[in-house]
Structure formats: C-alpha cells, structure tokens
C-alpha cells in the first residue's frame, strides 16, 4: 500500500470503523510517514471543529411573536364577503405549519429532485472544451470522501485567504496569484484527465495530490505574520 491508499483509509480510521489489522497498519504508517500524519491531523482537526459547532435551533419566542403579529394584522383588516378563492387561500394560511417547517419541506423536495435528476441522467457527450470544475464534479459518478474533505478544506482556507489578501504586501499578492494559478491549472488538467480515464487510480491520485498542493499553498500564505 502506498501513501494515498493509507490516506483513503483515514476517515474510517478516525471513525474507528477499520478492522484491527488495518487499524494497526494505518497506525504504524502514521508513525513513520510525516506526510500522511499531516493529512491525518488535518482531517482530525476538521472533525473536531465540526463537532464543536453549536447546534442552532429556532427560537420559539420569535415565531410566536410573528404568528401573533400576523393574527393582529389579519384581524384588523376590514371584513368583506369572502370569495371562494379567498376562503381557500385563508384556509391554507390557517394551516399550522411554521416557516422553518415549510422551508425544510421545500429544501427536502429540492434535494430529492436533485438526486432524481442526477441518477437518471447519463452524459452522452461531454464537451471538454467548455470544462468547468463545478460541472465536472456534478458528473463524477463515484463521490470520494477524501476528495470531498479536501474540497471542503480548500473552501475554508480560500475563504480565510480572501479575507487576508488585501492586507498583504503587493509583492506577496503577486507571488500568491502566480502560484495559485499554477496549482489551479494542475487541478484543472487532472480533472480533464479523469474525464478521459474515469476509472484510472493514478489519475485519481493526481487530483488528490493537486488538491493537497493547493491546501499546502494556502496554508503557507495564511501562516504569514
């Protein structure tokens, strides 16, 4: 097994889902390999941070106040003979669904529609000339957890970089722009290769390595003091 094989197992290793022999293998490799250990620490950090995020729940007081306000407004409106349509409309309004419940239902429906359309759509002709990262990612049939985790880390770091970019010296900005362009180009080229060879593990490794390089670059610039 090489480093990328071990890195594929890190999520399961973190969750404690690996069998004993594999767990020992990964543990031994992490002791010996600095690079994999670094990836492991990053993953662990992501998991830790996500566990510390507060669980937000809607405040009932707010919704009660809104409902009360709506009732007051509707009560203050002049009573006119109700048409069939307005009676129907009012009936729907009196339906006791809160706004978060409606939003949740709509979001669930949207997700279901998205899944249905994704799995029923088989791309026949892929126009590589009009390549964009987002469109290709939506068409990849197998969603790899390591890739998703790396993408999420890149998003987080890119956000922090954007916030700090204006504070940098113009020379640092130029250095950053030059090199992020190089890395983004390598990600784009690897993605194109993957479209041509979707089942090639070496090509998949190229994408992972390109992502890791982008993370390394972003971290280096964020560590500037």
């Amino acid at each position: 097994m090489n480093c990328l094989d071990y890195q594929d197992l890190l999520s399961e290793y973190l969750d404690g889902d690996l069998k004993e022999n594999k767990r020992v293998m990964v543990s031994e490799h992490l002791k010996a390999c600095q690079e994999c250990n670094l990836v492991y620490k990053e993953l662990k950090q992501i998991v830790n941070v996500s566990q510390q995020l507060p669980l937000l729940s809607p405040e009932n007081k707010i919704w009660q106040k809104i409902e009360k306000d709506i009732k007051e407004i509707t009560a203050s409106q002049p009573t006119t003979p109700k048409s069939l349509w307005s009676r129907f409309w009012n009936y729907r309004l009196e339906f006791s669904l809160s706004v978060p419940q409606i939003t949740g239902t709509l979001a669930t429906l949207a997700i279901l529609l998205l899944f249905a359309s994704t799995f029923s759509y088989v791309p026949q002709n892929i126009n590589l000339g009009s390549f964009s990262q987002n469109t290709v990612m939506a068409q990849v049939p197998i969603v790899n957890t390591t890739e998703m985790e790396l993408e999420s880390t890149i998003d987080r770091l890119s956000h922090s970089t954007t916030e700090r970019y204006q504070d940098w010296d113009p020379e640092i900005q130029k250095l950053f722009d030059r090199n992020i362009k190089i890395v983004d180009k390598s990600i784009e080229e690897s993605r194109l290769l993957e479209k041509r060879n979707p089942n090639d593990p070496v090509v998949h490794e190229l994408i992972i390595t390109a992502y890791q390089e982008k993370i390394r670059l972003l971290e280096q610039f964020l560590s500037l003091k």
Partner: protein
Amino acid sequence: MKKNFITTNNFLAKSFLVGLSITAAFFSLTFAIVPSKNYSNSFRVSPESAALTLANPSGSIKITTWDKAEIKLSAVSDDTVEISDHQQGSSVQVEIRCPKIGQSNFEINVPTNCSLDLKCLKGPIEISNAAGPISVQTTEGDILLNNLSSSNIVAKSTNGMITYSGTLSRKGIYNFSSVESTINISLPETTPFTLSATALPEKINLGGFKLTDLIPHERRVSGNHAGGGASLNIHTHRGQIKLNKLLKK
C-alpha cells in the same frame, strides 16, 4: 541692465537645478541601499532529539551540520523584518514577522541528526550532510539536498527545482513533489528502493537504474530496484523526473 537681470536669474535657476539634482541623487542612493540588520543566536540542545522549525517568507535558508550539541542561527535581513526565537527542550522555533515582504538570509548549523522543518515562500533551501527527519517546502524556490542520509524526507515545491543526492535507508520513506519543476535524484547505484515516479508521459528518466516488477502506466513508472526497499515517491505535474547514479568516490 535688463540683460544682467536675465543672466543673474539664469544663474540662480541653474544653480537651483544643479543643487536639486545633487540632492535627488543623494536621496535616491540613500534609499536604494535597503538598510539591513544582523541576527544571531545559539541554543544548547541534545544532538539526538534536536529539532528546528523555521518559516521564512522571503530569502534563503542554508543548513550545514556539525558535531556540536548546539543549533546556531545567523541571518542578515532587511530592516523591516523581525526575527524571534523560542526554545523548548531541544526544539527551537524561529518566527519571522514582516509587514512588507522583506528578505532574511539564514545560515544555520545543526547537529547531524537534528529534525528539520523548513519553509520558504520565496527563496531557496539548501541542506547538506544531514541525517535526521527532514521536511522542506518552498513555493518559489529551489530545494537542494546534498549528501543526506536521513530515513524520512519530505520535499515539496510549487515552482522550484528539487535536487537530492545521498543514500536511502532500506525502510526509509522519501517523498519529493513539485507542481511545475524538475526533480533530480542521485543515488548510489546499488541502492535498493521501491519507486513510484509520476510525471507527464516521457518525462521520466531512470538514468540507467533497472527496475523489476514494473507496473506499466502512461504517467507513472513503478517498480523495484535491487529487490526493492526504501519507499521513493516522486511526483511532478509538469516538470521532469531524473534519476542519476552517484559516482563511486
């Protein structure tokens, strides 16, 4: 009278212009020479557990080893750069602060087995004769690893050439990667290693090392040399990979 008046005025104007030019030349010379300062410090460490961490935004890092139980740092840096250091046990950490990108050029002596974690955004890193675990990273800067005998090396650059010469230990792990640049690896010809070299097609030159158990792939050469051993992973997205045999002394 009128002529005299004009002549006097011309004289004054010319004198003023000459004076202004001399002053401008003086100031431009003064500010063209960026003021620099020296930094130097030494730390007593245990040779077997010594560790050095240094991230240098701009400038060079040159590491040489010695037999002393001491890490010695010296640097010449721009006046805007602030260098601070911190020691905990045998671990030494150097921090660099600079509001503008200012250069610091480090020359450092460490014990042979010192663990090294070095980063440069813009500038080269050179390490000679070291044997401890090494992690070196540059964004734009060459990495030169000369005559090393470490069992664990990670060397990464975005846009900088990586050159390695030295031995590989049989159970060692060696990772070299550069997005844009060439990676040169020079090894004794009998070194046993398990190679995984990834690059664009026809950009991998094995330099006469004969591999067995080859796994064919358009962009990768993998196989064993001398029965396999050290894990040697080399990756470049757009550069070349060159293996060379070290000549016997």
